[in-house]
């Protein structure tokens, strides 16, 4: 099971691929990210690697299950999904989406 | 069709913006000589130029010590400096050594991964022709020449460093 993530080209904000939403297929809120089957994820990754005017540095985030990151990616993806863990922007991303932490 | 500017096939353009057909051919080391406008590999040039007449081209790879060519420069009309990747900056030193240390005044050409955003630095280092990957090579040269009026440091292009303008002799 995988998530597809990237950064938006124009502002660098973290994006998560979500199916069946608005036109772009991306959301800034990790809580809404679609959990993808590995094969579908690989195809989507190839597609979005070529769409360089929209997103930058797309890659796949492996999951153990729907809400659990693999251990080795935990801190990085937790921080990307929720915001830095310290300072005045602590958990900014989670706050902006008016939710608790995900993962 | 890719939007990417560098997806265009390389075209020969001079530092004055003239686009021309590239008449030079890179020979493999065991190819017979006798072609007009033959470019030799660096190793072959060093080994054979001494015994040759005429004027040749030489392809210099990033790791080649271009000073080894010094004894043979009178037989060299063109030097192609290879940039296998545009991030490999050794060709810039090669160019300056050729122009400023060895006094090479033939055609100095950048080949390989040559893109418009490096043209200005290349011209400053003494390149006067380019096999450029661009939709509009002449426009790329014009643009590169228009970017900077001044330079902080001297190089191979004769531009006076700013300190010389501040303190005219």
């Amino acid at each position, binding site marked *: 099971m995988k998530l597809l993530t990237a950064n938006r080209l124009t*502002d660098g904000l973290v994006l998560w691929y979500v199916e069946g939403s608005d036109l772009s297929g991306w959301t800034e809120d990790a809580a809404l990210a679609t959990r993808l089957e590995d094969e579908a994820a690989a195809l989507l990754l190839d597609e979005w690697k070529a769409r360089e005017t929209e997103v930058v540095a797309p890659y796949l985030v492996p999951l153990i299950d729907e809400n659990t990151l693999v251990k080795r990616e935990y801190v990085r993806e937790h921080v990307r999904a929720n915001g830095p863990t310290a300072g005045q922007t602590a958990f900014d991303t989670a706050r902006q989406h008016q939710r608790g932490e995900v993962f | 069709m890719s939007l990417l500017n560098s997806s265009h096939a390389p075209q020969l353009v001079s530092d004055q913006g003239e686009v021309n057909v590239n008449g030079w051919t890179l020979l493999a080391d065991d190819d017979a000589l006798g072609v007009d406008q033959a470019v030799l590999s660096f190793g072959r040039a060093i080994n054979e130029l001494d015994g040759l007449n005429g004027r040749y081209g030489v392809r210099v790879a990033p790791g080649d010590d271009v000073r080894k060519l010094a004894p043979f420069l009178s037989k060299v009309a063109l030097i192609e400096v290879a940039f296998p990747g545009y991030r490999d900056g050794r060709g810039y030193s090669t160019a300056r050594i050729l122009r400023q240390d060895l006094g090479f005044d033939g055609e100095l050409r950048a080949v390989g991964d040559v893109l418009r955003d490096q043209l200005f630095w290349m011209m400053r280092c003494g390149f006067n022709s380019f096999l450029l990957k661009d939709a509009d090579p002449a426009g790329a040269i014009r643009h590169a020449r228009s970017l900077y009026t001044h*330079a902080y440091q001297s190089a191979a292009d004769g531009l006076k460093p700013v300190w010389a303008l501040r303190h005219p002799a």
Partner: protein
Amino acid sequence: MYQYDQFDHAMVAARNAEFKDQVERRLKGELSEDQFKPLRLMNGLYLQLHAYMLRIAVPYGVLSSRQMRTFAHIARTYDRDFGHFTTRQNIQFNWIKLADTPQILEDLAAVEMHAIQTSGNCIRNTTTDQFAGAAKDEIDDPRPWAELIRQWSTFHPEFTFLPRKFKIAITGATRDRAAIRVHDIGLQLTDKGFDVYVGGGMGRTPHLGHLIKSGLPGDRLLSYLEAALRVYNRYGRRDNIYKARIKILVSALGPQEYARQVEEEWATLDQAQIDAPHAEIARIKSFFPQPAYAEKPFDVASLERAKAADAGFARWVRNNTLAHRRDDHVSVTISLKPTGLPPGDASSAQMDAMADAADRFGYGELRVSHEQNVILPHVAKADLYELYRLLDQNGLSSANVGKITDMIACPGLDYCSLANARSIPLAQDISQRFADAELTDKIGDLQIKISGCINACGHHHVGHIGILGVDKQGEEFYQILLGGRADEQAALGVITGKGLSAEAVPGALERLIKLYLELRTDETERFIDTVGRLGREAFAGALHEPA
């Protein structure tokens, strides 16, 4: 400080126009990300975990109050209201949009600032002593030379695609506050010219720089640097980014052979075309006069009374001020390491307050130190109490300069895409554990330096206590190094004991400090000196809980 002339303005304007065009072409897809990346890096723009990060150059750490206010403006207008001062005397903003960057660069150009060459495989900001021009132990002011190097290295056409980044540091005092021994090139100004050290660096394979030239005359500095860079550009490794710094080349060739190749190359250069004439050196020097010192009668008794009445002020004077070349002035360090906040950060309000402080009490001039603090180099002793009150009202009066809580910490995995572990929460925990003022003063001078990965932006190799974040199968662990020093007795710290979890580090440090307090000869023997005297092994056991 240096003022741009028409040529300097033209350079920055030209670069901004060039970059604006490159951004547009990237947005349109005419440039790939791979082609664009080195171009944006050469203008200080990184893609980090959350957004783009813009690193703005503060050349040799010197800035005016007007420039500091512009940082506040950028923080408010384009970012989330704060900035981070770095270990190369620059400032970083963490939430920048690519699309905004051309306008930000224009805003900066209006106050003679830029983000040129703050990243990329090129020559970076030349850093120096934050007390240059003020310190009592100064032999010669390094700032004009740093400015000379800045100009020579800006848009240098031959050195735009080096094997790797290139960092130069310069010092002009007997104490080295610029860490020159861990830079690619370190320059020591002496009364006989420059001593040149090459091949220092931290990261995966730390090295101290080797002295390859003594007594280099200032008017030959640029051509010598050109030769040194050319040898590196030609022969530095390009096959492996972890082996691409000049320290690897110098180590492989041996310093003598490297020096010989530099001399050989130097002899082929048309030095008269490269070395700036005396007139230019004099012109640049003319921008660094002593300030027009205010003749403010300084009454020792009244200062002592103020200290007696306000213990916080007394402590701040003791810890945060440094002797100045003039007896009636001091240099003041504004600590950006308050308890429990990210080291080196300042809010836009705090930036404005520091600018105000500089205008009222500091002749309009500020410095950024590589230890991530801000300095007012010239403050009349008569003004100290008023300055302290102003700083105190703005959360800028932490009296911990040089002490255990004055830590260097990189942004770490909270912001940086290269990191293995977070550093800011650890720094906050440590600062909370040692928050007690009496304890901090009792411990005395102690430098903790924290890096979130082996790239060592937090300088962990040269901390008295260095902390390196590592990833152990997805968990953050921290290796402790002991005995590092960044000064003129530079030394690389050595890993001591096993890696510790984040929770275990503050307790380990407490045991370490407790042992130090027991073992030191008296309170004048600093931690680093006790480690030097007794060896790290004496302290290794304290790091881990007794069985």
